[in-house]
């Protein structure tokens, strides 16, 4: 069977190459972490996978199907969901309505609101946002916004969930709560690809890590081994191995 997600030789340049000849395979049930210094091209890679940016070269496949030329909404309906590093809330709508959008339109065929409501409620519960369901999204604090990104993505009932620094900016206690939430989502059968700088949070969830620098994959494999490898120590932690 084809992998759930396949990135083949993908390139993106903004004047300089930000993602360079990158290949990646994610199997159903994987939990992959992506690390790399600021500006390494992690978010750009995620945008290419989700369709928010178009590839200069290479292709993206979901379950063996080439989706390189398709729109982000189409990829979402094929089972790919993401959270954004900078949350993209619908500020004038309530938290519930925000999540309802994902539940209604993220399904393969748009769902009726009546059918989508329990899906949205479940997503709100999982993201621990149910108590603020009728709050205007624009009034949410940072943690709430991050949780809402997660709830909206979950409401699309994804096969694969792409998380971009969802733990960034949170307190230690909040990070631990979020880790539990993501573990539960993964345990529920959702494949995870998680970009994160907070390494201990990542290590608590993922079973594989890819490290990138200047758009190039520099290491991939067992989390502990990758984090301990000299290449990663050098570029990611800024430690030159003497």
């Amino acid at each position, binding site marked *: 069977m084809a992998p759930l997600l396949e990135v083949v030789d993908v390139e993106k340049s903004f004047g300089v190459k930000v993602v360079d000849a990158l290949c990646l395979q994610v199997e159903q049930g994987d939990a992959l972490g992506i690390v790399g210094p600021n500006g390494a091209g992690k978010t750009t890679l995620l945008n290419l996978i989700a369709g928010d940016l178009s590839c200069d070269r290479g292709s993206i496949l979901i379950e063996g199907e080439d989706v390189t030329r398709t729109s982000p909404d189409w990829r*979402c309906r094929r089972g790919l969901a993401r959270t954004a590093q900078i949350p993209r809330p619908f500020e004038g709508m309530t938290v519930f309505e925000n999540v309802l*959008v994902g539940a209604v*339109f993220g399904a393969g065929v*748009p769902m009726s609101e009546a059918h989508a409501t*329990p899906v949205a409620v479940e997503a709100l519960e999982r993201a621990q946002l149910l108590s*603020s369901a009728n709050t205007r999204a624009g009034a949410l604090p940072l943690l709430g916004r991050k949780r809402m990104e997660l709830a*909206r993505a979950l409401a699309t009932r994804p096969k694969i969930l792409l998380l971009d620094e969802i733990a960034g900016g949170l307190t230690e206690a909040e990070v631990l709560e979020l880790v539990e939430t993501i573990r539960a989502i993964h345990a529920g059968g959702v494949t995870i690809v998680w970009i994160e700088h907070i390494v201990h949070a990542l290590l608590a969830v993922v079973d594989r890590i890819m490290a990138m620098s200047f758009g190039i994959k520099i290491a991939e494999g067992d989390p502990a081994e990758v984090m301990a490898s000299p290449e990663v120590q050098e570029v990611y932690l800024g430690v030159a191995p003497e």
Partner: protein
Amino acid sequence: MTGHRVTRSDRQSTFGLAVSAVLLVVLVLLPWWDGDGSLRVPLVPILYYLALAQMWNLLAGFAGLVSIGQQMFVGIGVYTLLSFAEDFGVDPYLSVLLAGVVAAVLSLPVAALAFRLRGGYFAIGTWVIAEVFRLIALESGFLGGANVRTLTRESLGGYSVDTRNTVTYLMALGLAAGATAILVFVLRSRLGLALRSIRDNQEGARGLGVSVTRAKLVVWVISASWTGMTGAVILLHNPSTRAESAFSVLRWTALVVFIAIIGGVGSTTGPIIGVAIYWGVREFLEDADEWRFIILGLIAAAMAITAPRGVYGLLQKRWAVQFFPVRRRLVGPGIGGPAPGGQSQPAPDAGSTAR
């Protein structure tokens, strides 16, 4: 399953619905005590301007499609009615419906062109395309060229003046009330959910599976069709026309935009307030057409700068009102949040113009 459900109305919006229902019944019954037509006839322009303003509001305020080419659909409606009723002998009132169909069909190739353009370019693009339609009408021998064309008594069949006045009035009323109802209905539907999400964050909406182009296209066709039918009713009210007036950007877009902006774009109630203000200005300056444009234009410009959400926005800020229930509230176990009415954390009537 989870024991949660969604409610739409609160006390204010139920009140709003009740008031509009009573008003609508009064207006429907009006012909029966307005014997000589002295009320019906002058109300027709107020009503068709409300229909036009609501349709522009749907486009610009909810789908982000700032069209300044609405006159093309008015003109298409006018000339469809003329052709069908005058040249092919179709019943004029049936032709009003055909005007809606023709406008909807023609709106598709227009969208294929204009939807490639963004923001200000879209606005200019729709204007240019409307000009092309005007030139086609002006050059077409079949449509009558630059000549004045009139919907004649013959093609209006055996209908008496009184019947004609009443039917035109009721049609204009149907278009105005229908336009408002379409807005409320669209906003309450999944399409409305999509539009509001697009308005707040287009990329975010796409990421959640919302097909942005499709949502906008549906709105575009609805608006074109309704505007086309309104154009046909404008001809019924004022049976002589020329290409210059049927495709007038000033009458059928600029004035409409002024009305919508003054009342409040992006809300279902704003254009109703705007058209009431238009009525006032019209009564005040009965025969000064140009002055009407200038004064309304100045008010609209002042509003756009000082109160971008119009008079309705000011009212809403003051009293947190919501007349038509479009907002969804989740009720059930585990939900905290503001007291019913949502005044502590108002989620605006699908209405923030934040874009």
